């Protein structure tokens, strides 16, 4: 008799397509809802405090209104925009705004980077000291600086041996504001840089040292590239928010003067709205500034995003 080979292991039964029972609509809804419910409070706040005011501003910019609730708004078409574009106030305050941003960058980027690199790996005490100005309320700080910058008895003039009227000179007022704002922000920026540096794995530096790189090569080739997402964050923060941070100081120290020489766009908006009570004009300026700012901020944010993705570790 001759036998036959049979498979020792029976072959697997063919896969059966699963009959996916579709749950009822109500059940599906209940399952899908939770994520949206979690998001809801945040979304509501965003709409109420950001998007709704934005839409209202846009609406207001085509009207004339003096902010008194009993007075009706009158529709004026593009009048507000025409008035803005024919006066030089918006243009010059925009230029000043960018001057402020450029003037703040050393305080929010270069100085913190230098301090961060020099104090890398040191204790937290003197970092705390650097951070301290951030904790001083802007208005309180402004008052102290007012004394320090006093043309007659101020410490700054005494030390420098000058008699400059810092806050009342058209050439110095804006830069005095920038300096004080920078003093406020530098501590925070140092902390951000320190956190960024602490987030870089020390093994990279160790490897580079064994590979024979000098410390300046390590800084240029390893540390700075790996720190670039942090540095981009600081640039973005400064560009997007820097000029806003000067507002309380301008309001306390110079009120935009002398002769408008420290009036940034933010202060201009405020003046139009709450000094001249011309809500329509302020809204139109706001809309224009918003549009112009988007043109600067969006490409910058794109660049920063790309840098962050590129430098991301494995």
């Amino acid at each position, binding site marked *: 008799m001759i036998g036959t080979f049979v498979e020792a292991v029976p072959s697997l039964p063919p896969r059966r397509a699963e009959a996916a029972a579709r749950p009822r609509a109500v059940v599906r809804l209940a399952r899908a809802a939770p994520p949206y419910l979690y998001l809801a409070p945040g979304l509501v706040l965003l709409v109420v405090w950001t998007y709704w005011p934005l839409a209202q501003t846009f609406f207001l910019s085509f009207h004339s209104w003096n902010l008194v609730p009993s007075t009706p708004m009158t529709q004026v078409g593009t009048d507000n925009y025409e008035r803005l574009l024919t006066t030089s106030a918006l243009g010059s305050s925009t230029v000043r705004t960018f001057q402020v941003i450029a003037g703040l960058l050393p305080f929010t980027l270069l100085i913190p980077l230098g301090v961060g690199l020099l104090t890398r790996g040191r204790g937290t005490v003197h970092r705390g000291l650097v951070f301290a100005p951030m904790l001083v309320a802007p208005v309180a700080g402004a008052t102290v600086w007012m004394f320090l910058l006093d043309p007659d008895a101020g410490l700054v003039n005494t030390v420098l041996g000058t008699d400059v009227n810092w806050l009342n000179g058209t050439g110095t007022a804006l830069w005095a504001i920038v300096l004080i704002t920078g003093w406020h922000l530098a501590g925070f920026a140092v902390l951000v840089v320190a956190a960024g540096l602490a987030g870089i794995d020390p093994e990279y530096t160790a490897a580079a040292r064994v590979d024979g*790189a000098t410390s300046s090569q390590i800084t240029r080739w390893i540390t700075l590239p790996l720190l670039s997402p942090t540095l981009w964050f600081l640039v973005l923060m400064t560009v997007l928010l820097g000029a806003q941070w000067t507002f309380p100081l301008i309001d306390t120290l110079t009120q935009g003067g002398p002769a408008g020489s420290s009036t940034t766009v933010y202060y201009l908006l405020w003046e139009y709205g709450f000094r001249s009570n011309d809500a329509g004009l302020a809204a139109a300026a706001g809309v224009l500034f918003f549009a112009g700012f988007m043109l600067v901020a969006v490409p910058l944010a794109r660049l920063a995003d790309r840098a962050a993705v590129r430098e991301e570790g494995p």
Partner: protein
Amino acid sequence: MSVGQVAFTAPSGDAALLRRMSTIRLEGLGRRFGAAVAVDDVWLDVADGEFLVLLGPSGCGKSTLLRMIAGLLEPSAGRILLDGADITALPPQHRNLAMVFQSYALYPHLSVSRNIGFPLRARRRSKPEITAKVGEVAALLGLTDLLDRKPRQLSGGQRQRVALGRALVRDPGAFLMDEPLSNLDAALRATTRAELVELHRRLNATVVYVTHDQVEAMTMASRIVLLNEGRVEQAGPPGEVYDAPATVFAARFLGSPAMNLVDAAVTRDGRAHGPGIDLPLGLPDEAAFPERPVTLGVRPERLSIVPEDGAGLRGVVTAVENLGGEEVAHCLVGSSQVAVRGPRPLGARPGDRIGLTAAPAHLHLFDPVSGRRLTWQPAATTAPKE
């Protein structure tokens, strides 16, 4: 390695002749972190071309020792000499040692070719020279197609090769490797192990290799240095460390399953006695031996199963493990666990009474207190010495 002849050292000429000699000597090297002693008084000579493996359990100070050699950690005691020159205070940049990190530490923002070429770039070599050298190393390691990728786009094994390439691209005095295979899966680890051995044979370079894996140590080392709590427990060729462990720690650390260690006593007749134990020790004839307690050691694969009557070790089988080709039977002898390893089937089943024996040459005696190996010294004064 798949690719054949590539000269690693000087671009021209006979590599073997031009290769620098490099010996490393550690003199009483120590390092403490606060009150904790990580490395304690290590004396060590690494010969030129040697593949030295620092072996030990986690936390025994292997990485600390290696980092001190690399210059990344300052020793708190002792000296380091490279080719006879004291480099203890030299920063890592000037030591000309190459290191492969356990985490590989590949620069995440640089491509594979830039990672490999980094040491040359730091030395301000010309672009064409760097490109040529990187190409050479990449071909040797099978990385040619990956040169433009970033580290995060590589698999673990490929990253390991890049880290190796970065060490190979220049001609370092010695290679320091900190568990370079620990992130790889078992199969990749086995092939890479063989590749590293082959590479070492070809380059004939000095390597100090850290691992906690005894298989890596046994297969790759020309000499094993076994560390325990910062101290050198034993140093010697793999065969010697395995066959004649200097201490109970060394006996336990190498081998799988670990060496059987049971408490016993040497009696006047020169045999080891204990509960379930009565083994001849093969000592030369003497009128009477000094009695003393010992720890008796025997490797599982050196035990054989014999009829229970008159066997040297008698016990009960508690479990049998099937390893595929072999079996391990765990037995209870007296109150000690004893493992027997042999070809499958061993012919033992749980619950069986079992008799075991071993040739006297395969028995190890240790002092039960100090844990150090005991040998018989037939001298005029017949006292056993350590």
